[in-house]
């Protein structure tokens, strides 16, 4: 049994990273040329890691299932990226970003990793600007900031509502430079099918070329998994259609522990579900909560009238509205963290105040912001007595400049104009804080196998704050992994190229081919999506925003039964040696069907509420925090790291006790 060693360096928290960097082994530049590194996934973490490792001199092989690294789902991140620059002079600092992130994560993250993240955050912005990322600027030419949920400072840098796109294109451009000079060999439309271990170390992967169906062997001295999160276990999520857990799950099955699978972020501001045909959910950036006010009707009869189409939201006066976040959390108001905002929306909708036909939607209203900005603009233009029409026009222009692309997206999907009528929103699965367990070096429990970005578990605890995912992805890829991996690779300078004709490669390839042959030859009757949708429904109903022991136990049994049915009844049309999307999907859903059960098991074992994980049995019953989530630090201040033992239900729990030396464990209050 492997023992969990987080390998956190000794010393005061503010000096750990610097002193660590000063003491690790390095690989000399000539030797780097003899070392190969595989990077799976080309989002912010994988793309930035691949580019940086290649710049350092390693031979990088990068893999993406998409047709270009630029299409990784980091591209869809909208709102921004945090950095402790304190450009606004509002008291921000490395410590404050560290503190906010640990608190926002409900004290379930590893302090040393989070501090390092906060420490390198400022560098990310410098680096991105040097790369030509066009961040928003003010009229003086300096960088602009906005605020995000769960914090009291303005530290979020942004590029309109497309920050993820611009940062990813920055990493992609850095990759392109290295691809052009042959230091990165890029494999687009390739899926990682398994990891290959030689003498217990990760030494390569088996891939499938998604165009030709060819099964290929790739060797390297280290393997980096940067394949993103597993939100698609819910079928409906804000993830891309192809986002999957397979790379992470394959390494899990070969010995990498999977940590905190139940920590999943349900994002409060998404476009509500419209019907059974729905294939994905669309996020409306959290940045909208800077200016939008969230409300439902104060009276049940008004909510009913709205659902039946007899009343419009604009018919209700201020007194007839319940701005429930402002009411419940006066200090943070509409900018409470995501888990809190999501649960509050569910609470109102469950109580009958939901506003669309399904009863599962609340309003996000910009009318006040339009008025406020309009008046301000009128003054700037020297008009001290503006008409209501002028205020409205000027205000809408400001809102358009800030959120234009999001408003357009909403309009196209819902067919309503959010400048004129409030948006309707509802929580949806968005981000997974859980993932592969890694130590301070970002190495998994498999030697030589690293995991970065959303795919690992390390920095966000039980809830991720807005604009922190981009920060973590780039921190891991640009500034952390390139150092820590060198320490490991310094022992490999005499190893020489890893041959791909070893029996370990042979064996891994065979099991991959066996599974593929099973799928294309199985005489099933139901499509892959059929099973994926059923899995999603179990997850959402019983392992979603509110969980209890009974539901979780049922979910485990139901997922197991569904998995057994899948292996009998799944139907995969087409051949193995062609472009075959159904075949690719079948492999991914097979892994989700195992992960889902472990997810429910993890949620069942964690008998406390923390961050995105809300156990109905663990809520405050009295006092000012009544109804809020109740954490149990005495019994649950640990990371759950699961070891694979065949069936997900048999997984063995290992605990990494979390120590808080620099932040006091407190009830998280946003009141």
């Amino acid at each position: 049994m492997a023992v969990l060693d987080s390998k956190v360096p000794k010393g005061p928290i503010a000096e750990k990273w610097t002193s660590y960097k000063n003491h690790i082994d390095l690989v000399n530049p000539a030797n780097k040329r003899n070392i190969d590194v595989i990077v799976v996934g080309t989002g912010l973490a994988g793309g930035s890691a691949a580019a940086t490792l290649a710049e350092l001199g390693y031979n990088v092989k990068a893999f993406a299932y998409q047709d270009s690294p630029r299409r990784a789902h980091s591209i869809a991140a909208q709102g921004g990226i945090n950095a402790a620059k304190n450009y606004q002079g509002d008291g921000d600092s490395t410590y404050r970003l560290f503190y906010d992130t640990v608190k926002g994560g409900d004290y379930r993250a590893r302090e040393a990793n989070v501090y390092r993240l906060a420490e390198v955050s400022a560098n990310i912005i410098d680096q991105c600007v040097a790369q030509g990322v066009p961040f928003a600027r003010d009229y003086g030419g300096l960088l602009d900031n906005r605020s995000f949920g769960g914090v009291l400072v303005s530290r979020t840098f942004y590029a309109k509502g497309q920050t993820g796109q611009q940062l990813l294109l920055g990493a992609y451009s850095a990759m392109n430079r290295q691809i052009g000079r042959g230091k990165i060999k890029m494999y687009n439309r390739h899926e990682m099918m398994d990891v290959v271990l030689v003498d217990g170390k990760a030494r390569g992967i088996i891939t499938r070329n998604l165009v030709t169906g060819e099964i290929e062997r790739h060797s390297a001295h280290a393997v980096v998994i940067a394949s993103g999160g597993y939100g698609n276990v819910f079928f409906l999520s804000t993830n891309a259609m192809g986002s999957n857990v397979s790379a992470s799950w394959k390494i899990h099955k070969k010995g990498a522990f999977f940590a905190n699978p139940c920590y999943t972020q349900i994002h409060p501001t998404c476009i509500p579900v419209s019907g059974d045909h729905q294939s994905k959910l669309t996020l409306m950036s959290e940045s909208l909560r800077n200016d939008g006010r969230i409300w439902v009707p104060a009276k049940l009869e008004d909510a009913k009238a709205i659902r039946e189409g007899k009343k419009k939201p604009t018919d209700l006066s201020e007194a007839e509205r319940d701005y429930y976040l402002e009411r419940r959390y006066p200090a943070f108001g509409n900018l409470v963290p995501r888990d809190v905002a999501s649960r509050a929306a569910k609470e109102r909708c469950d109580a009958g105040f939901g506003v669309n036909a399904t009863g599962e939607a609340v309003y996000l209203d910009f009318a006040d912001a339009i008025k406020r900005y309009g008046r301000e603009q009128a003054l700037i233009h020297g008009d001290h007595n503006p008409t209501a029409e002028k205020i409205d026009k000027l205000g809408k222009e400001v809102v358009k400049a800030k959120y234009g692309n999001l408003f357009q997206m909403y309009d196209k999907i819902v067919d309503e104009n959010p400048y004129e009528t409030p948006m309707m929103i509802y929580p949806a699965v968005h981000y997974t804080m859980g993932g592969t367990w890694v130590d301070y070096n970002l190495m998994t429990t498999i030697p030589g196998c690293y995991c970065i970005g959303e795919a690992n578990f390390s920095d966000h605890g039980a809830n991720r704050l807005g604009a922190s995912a981009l920060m973590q992805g780039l921190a891991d890829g640009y500034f952390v992994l390139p150092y820590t991996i060198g320490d490991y690779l310094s022992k490999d300078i005499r190893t020489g190229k890893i041959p791909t004709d070893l029996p370990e490669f042979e064996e891994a390839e065979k099991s991959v081919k066996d599974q593929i042959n099973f799928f294309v030859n199985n005489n099933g009757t139901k499509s892959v999506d059929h099973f994926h949708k059923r899995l999603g429904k179990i997850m959402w109903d019983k392992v979603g925003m509110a969980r209890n022991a009974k539901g979780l136990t049922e979910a485990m049994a139901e997922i197991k039964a569904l998995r057994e049915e899948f292996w009998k009844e799944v139907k995969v049309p087409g051949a193995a040696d062609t472009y075959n999307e159904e075949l690719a999907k079948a492999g991914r859903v097979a892994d989700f069907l195992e992960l889902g059960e472990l997810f429910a098991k993890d949620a069942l074992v964690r008998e406390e509420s923390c961050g995105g994980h809300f156990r109905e049995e663990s809520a405050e019953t009295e006092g000012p925090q009544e109804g809020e989530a109740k954490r149990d630090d005495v019994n649950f201040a640990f990371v759950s790291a699961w070891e694979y033992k065949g069936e997900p239900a048999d997984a063995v729990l290992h605990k990494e006790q979390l120590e808080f030396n620099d932040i006091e464990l407190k009830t998280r209050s946003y009141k």
Partner: protein
Amino acid sequence: MKLTLKIWRQKDANDKGQMVDYNINDVSPDMSFLEMLDVLNEQIINEGGEPVAFDHDCREGICGMCSLFINGEAHGPDRGITTCQLHMRKFKDGDTIYIEPFRAKAFPVIKDLVVDRSAFDRIQHQGGFISVNTSGNTQDANSLPISKHAADEAMDAATCIGCGACVATCKNSSAMLFVGAKVSQYALLPQGQVEAADRVRNMVAQMDAEGFGNCTNTGACEVECPKGISLDNIARMNREFFKANI
């Protein structure tokens, strides 16, 4: 809604390919176009056929993976959106819809509606970057003020999603809107000046080598571009190109 779909089916790059008719019922106006194709594929699978292959991923209009020529227009009849953001309310009950891949010599068909756009990546390899290593030792981000106007204009160019609608739309299969957008983003920023001449020369040379045509100022690309990339970017690229060559 009930619809008749005429869809391009092609087994692989070597197959000749043909239009095939499909009927689909119970289409909801709230479905996205790709969700309609999901429903069609489920129907085809249940009938024992092979589903229609099409590229898609984020389904929120930003990854640039989805494509499709719908009734003769890249990303369909609506403006300022990608195919994944197109909703069936733009069509009427009883409509016949023609669905074809993006067609260009430089975008060979892989299967059905899926095309190979790796030519775009190869153009970027030739200069779609600023040569700065991730040392973490670059200057402070605010030590280089950039006028809001230039930053905003660079951002407008940088919003290109690389979907290839401009190429598919252009009668010359030109990639100049795509290349112009990248050249412009860097040309508008001080960080991009150092390598400006090499960048535009190399990217244009690769664009020509890939077999893309030239621009004849029709402007169809700008109309069909889901991100509203302006023709100004082509003019700016031409200016940069001339500047680099005198």
